[in-house]
C-alpha cells in the first residue's frame, strides 16, 4: 500500500506525468515538497490500487510549471510557492493561495532551506480583471451571511450572468501540516480530526492508515469494520445535511426542515457508535479506542428507521417540478473539464468520473459489488444532488450490512513506539467530499519530517469556479451548496 519511491529528474517530469494521466486509471494525487529541496508528485493508479511517489530534486528554487499541460496542477503549484518558495516558471496566474498580505514577506513556513530575501510584493494578490463594457464586479465575503467559514468570491458579471468567478481562500490557514510534525505521532489524530471537522472520522481514518503503513502493522478485522461504519455514518449525516442545504437555498422549507431533523438522527447514530456526535476521538492508529458492541443493535434499528423516514422525503424533493427546474442544467461542469481539473468525490462522479476510493483502494471491508458507484453524466446541480441521494442509500445499506457481518475480536492492536525510518506512508480514504490523502515522510530516526494532507476540496474548488460560469448570479449559491466544499480543509 505504501507508495513506491522513484527519483524523477526535472526534465522528465512533465512527460512522465502527462503519460501517467493518459493511461487508464492514472490520477494525480498530490504535488508538494518535503523541505523545499525537491518536488514530490504523488500519482495514483486506480486500476491496481497502487501509488507512486516521484521525487524531483530542485535547484535554485525554480522549476517549470506544468499548468499548461496538466491544468489541475495550477492550484498545487501556487500552494507549493507559498509554503516552500519554489517558483513555478511559466505559471499563468501565480499568486498566493494561503499566505495573505499580513504574513511577513520572508516567511516560508515549511521550507527548511535558507531563502533569499523576499519582498512584500510576493504576498500581493491581484484578482483577474474582466474588462469590457457593462462588466461589473460583485465582491462577496470573506465574511458570509450564514454561519459558515470565510472565503472571498469575486464575480465578474454582465447583468445577471456570471462571466468569471475568482475564489480566494486561506482565511483559516492555521499551520496544520507543520503542527502535525511537531507533535508525537500518537497525538496527530487529534489535529487531523480538526483539519476539517465535518470530516473528522475520515481524517482520523486516513491518519490511522498512514501511520499503520509506516509501522507495517495491520489492525484487526473488527476495527477495520467499525472504522468503515463510522466513515459511512459521517457520509450519511453530511450528505443529508448537504441535500437539506440545497433545499433551503431554493426556499424549499419543508424539505430543509425535515432534513435537518433527520441529520440529527444520523448524528445520534454516530454518537451511539463513537460516543461523539461528530465522531471525534474514536478512530486511532492501531484500531479504534472503544468497542460499541452493546449499541450495535440500536444503531442498526435507528439506521433502518432513518431509511424508512428518508425515502418519502427524498422522493418529495426529487419529484417536485419547480425544484427540478431550479437544479437541472445549472452549474454544469463538463466531463472533459472535470477530468482536466481532477475533480474528486461527489463532484467528480456527477461529471462521469468513475472513481471511488472505497472501491479503487479497497481495504477488504466491502464486497466487490457493494459500492454501487453513483455516476451521473450531466455534471449539473441536479446530478450532484442525485449522486448524494444514491450515496445516502448506499451508506444506509452498508451500515446495516457491515454490522451484520461484523467479525468478533479485539478492536485495537498495539503499535511499536517508533515509526520506520526514511519511509513514505500514505493514507487514502473516501471522505464524504471525496478522495482524502494523508502523506507522511519519516526521517532517519523515525520522526515525522513532513505531513501532507490533501483534502478533496483542494481539487474541487476550481470545479466550483468553473460551474458558476455563464450561470445567473442568483443560481450561484445553488452551485456552491451542491459542491459543499470545506474552507478549513483546504486552508489547513
Amino acid at each position, binding site marked *: 500500500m505504501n507508495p513506491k519511491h522513484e527519483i524523477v529528474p526535472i526534465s522528465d517530469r512533465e512527460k512522465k506525468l502527462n503519460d501517467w494521466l493518459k493511461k487508464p486509471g492514472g490520477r494525480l494525487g498530490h504535488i508538494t515538497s518535503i523541505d523545499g529541496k525537491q518536488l514530490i508528485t504523488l500519482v495514483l493508479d486506480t486500476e491496481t490500487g497502487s501509488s507512486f511517489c516521484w521525487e524531483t530534486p530542485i535547484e535554485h528554487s525554480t522549476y517549470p510549471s506544468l499548468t499548461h499541460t496538466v491544468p489541475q496542477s495550477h492550484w498545487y503549484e501556487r500552494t507549493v510557492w507559498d509554503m516552500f518558495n519554489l517558483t513555478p516558471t511559466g505559471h499563468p496566474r501565480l499568486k498566493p493561495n494561503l499566505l495573505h498580505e499580513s504574513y511577513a514577506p520572508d516567511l516560508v513556513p515549511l521550507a527548511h532551506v535558507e531563502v533569499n530575501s523576499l519582498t512584500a510584493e510576493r504576498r500581493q494578490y491581484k484578482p483577474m480583471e474582466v474588462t469590457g463594457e457593462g462588466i461589473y464586479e460583485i465582491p462577496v465575503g470573506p465574511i458570509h451571511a450564514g454561519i459558515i467559514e470565510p472565503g472571498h468570491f469575486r464575480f465578474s458579471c454582465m447583468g445577471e450572468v456570471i462571466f468569471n468567478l475568482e475564489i480566494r481562500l486561506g482565511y483559516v490557514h492555521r499551520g496544520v501540516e507543520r503542527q502535525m510534525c511537531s507533535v508525537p505521532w500518537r497525538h496527530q489524530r487529534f489535529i487531523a480530526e480538526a483539519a476539517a471537522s465535518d470530516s473528522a472520522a475520515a481524517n482520523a481514518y486516513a491518519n490511522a492508515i498512514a501511520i499503520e503503513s509506516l509501522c507495517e502493522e495491520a489492525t484487526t478485522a473488527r476495527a477495520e469494520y467499525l472504522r468503515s461504519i463510522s466513515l459511512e455514518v459521517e457520509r450519511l449525516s453530511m450528505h443529508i445535511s448537504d441535500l437539506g442545504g440545497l433545499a433551503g437555498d431554493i*426556499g424549499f*422549507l419543508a424539505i430543509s*426542515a425535515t432534513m435537518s431533523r433527520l441529520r440529527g438522527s444520523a448524528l445520534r447514530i454516530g454518537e451511539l457508535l463513537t460516543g461523539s456526535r461528530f465522531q471525534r476521538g474514536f478512530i486511532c492508529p492501531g484500531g479504534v479506542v472503544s468497542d460499541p458492541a452493546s449499541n450495535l443493535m440500536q444503531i442498526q434499528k435507528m439506521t433502518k428507521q432513518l431509511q424508512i423516514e428518508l425515502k418519502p422525503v427524498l422522493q418529495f424533493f426529487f419529484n417536485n417540478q419547480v425544484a427540478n427546474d431550479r437544479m437541472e442544467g445549472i452549474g454544469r461542469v463538463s466531463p472533459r473539464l472535470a477530468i482536466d481539473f481532477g475533480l474528486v468525490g461527489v463532484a467528480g462522479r456527477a461529471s462521469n468520473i468513475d472513481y471511488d476510493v472505497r472501491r479503487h483502494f479497497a481495504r477488504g471491508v466491502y464486497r466487490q459489488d457493494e459500492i454501487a458507484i453513483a455516476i451521473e453524466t450531466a455534471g449539473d446541480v441536479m446530478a450532484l444532488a442525485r449522486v448524494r441521494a444514491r450515496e445516502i442509500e448506499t451508506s444506509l445499506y452498508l451500515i446495516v450490512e457491515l454490522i451484520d457481518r461484523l467479525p468478533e475480536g479485539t478492536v485495537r492492536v498495539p503499535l511499536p513506539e517508533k515509526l520506520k525510518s526514511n519511509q513514505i506512508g500514505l493514507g487514502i480514504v473516501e471522505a464524504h467530499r471525496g478522495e482524502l490523502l494523508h502523506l507522511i515522510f519519516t526521517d532517519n530516526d523515525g520522526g515525522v519530517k513532513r505531513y501532507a494532507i490533501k483534502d478533496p476540496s483542494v481539487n474541487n474548488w476550481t470545479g466550483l469556479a468553473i460551474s458558476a460560469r455563464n450561470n445567473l448570479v*442568483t*443560481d450561484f449559491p445553488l452551485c456552491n451548496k451542491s459542491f459543499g466544499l470545506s474552507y478549513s480543509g483546504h486552508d489547513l
Partner: protein
Amino acid sequence: MNSALSLWLFYLLCVVFAPILVLGTIRKTKARLQNRIGPPLLQPLFDLVKLCRKSETLSKTMCGIFRLASVISLADMLLIAWIAPWLCYKPGPDSADIFLIFYLFALTRMFTMLGALDSGSAFGAFGASREATLSLLVEPAALLGFISIGALTGSSDLLQILSFSNAQLSGSPGIWLLVGTAVLLANLVESSRMPVDDPTTHLELTMVHEAMILEASGRNLALIEYTHALRMTILLGLSVQCFMRAIPSIWNAEPAVQGLINLTGIFFLAVLIGIFESISVKLQWRKVPEFIAYSLTMSLLASLIAIGGRAMK
C-alpha cells in the same frame, strides 16, 4: 360622535398592529408547518422595538437619500393606508383614485431603490435593478383588474369601483374573484414573498428586497420593515375587499360583521401565504415573468368579463 371616535381608534389600531400580526401569522404558520413552535405572533413588534433601541451604522459613500428614503416611504405608505379602502371603515377622503394609490406604491418603491443605490454596495445596486424589473412586470397585472371594473363604472375612483358591485355586478362574482386573485398574486411579488423572493434567506446573491436594505440598520431598518409589512397588509386588504364582493350574503351583512370578516380575511390570506411558502420552491429568476403572467391572466380575464358585460347592456 362617540362611535366615530371609536371607529377612528379601531382604524389606528389596525394600521399599527395589523401589519405586525400579519407578519407574525405568516411566520407562525411556516414554523408550525415545519414542526417548530415558532416565534410569538407579536415577535415582529418586539423586533421593531429592538431595532429602535439599536445604534445605526451608515456607509461612508451615502448622501442623505438613504436615510430620507425610509421616512418618505413610511409617510407615503401611511398616506395610502389613509386613502385606500383596504378596511371596511375608512376615515380618509371620499375618493380614492386607483392610479393615485398604485403610483403612491410606486413612489415608495422608487425611494427604496434610490436608498439602495445610495448605500454604494454592490448588493444594493443589483437588488434595485431586480426590483425595477419586477415592478415593471407586476404593475399592469395589479392595475388592470381594477381598471376593467373602472371601465364599467366610468370612473377610476376605487370607492366607486367597489360600491358599484352592489347593483350591477352582484350577479357576477367571477370578476371579483379574478380581480382579488390577481391582486393577491401581484402582492406576493410586490411584497417580495415566495416564490419570487425568499424573505428568510441569508444568501445575499439571491435577494431582491432584502438586498436593497442590507445596509440599513437600527431605527432606519425598523421603519423599512414596518413600511414593508404595511404595504403587504394594505394589498391583502384590497384582495379581501374584492373577495367579499364576490359573495352577496357577506356584502349584504351588517357593517360591523363586514368589518370583522374583512379583518379575518386578511389573516386568513396571511395563513394561506404561510402555507404556500412552506411547500413552494423559489422560482428561477428567468421563470419569474411566467409567475407574474398568472396574475396578469386573471386581470385580463376580469377585463374580458367586464367588457363582455358592458357589451350585453
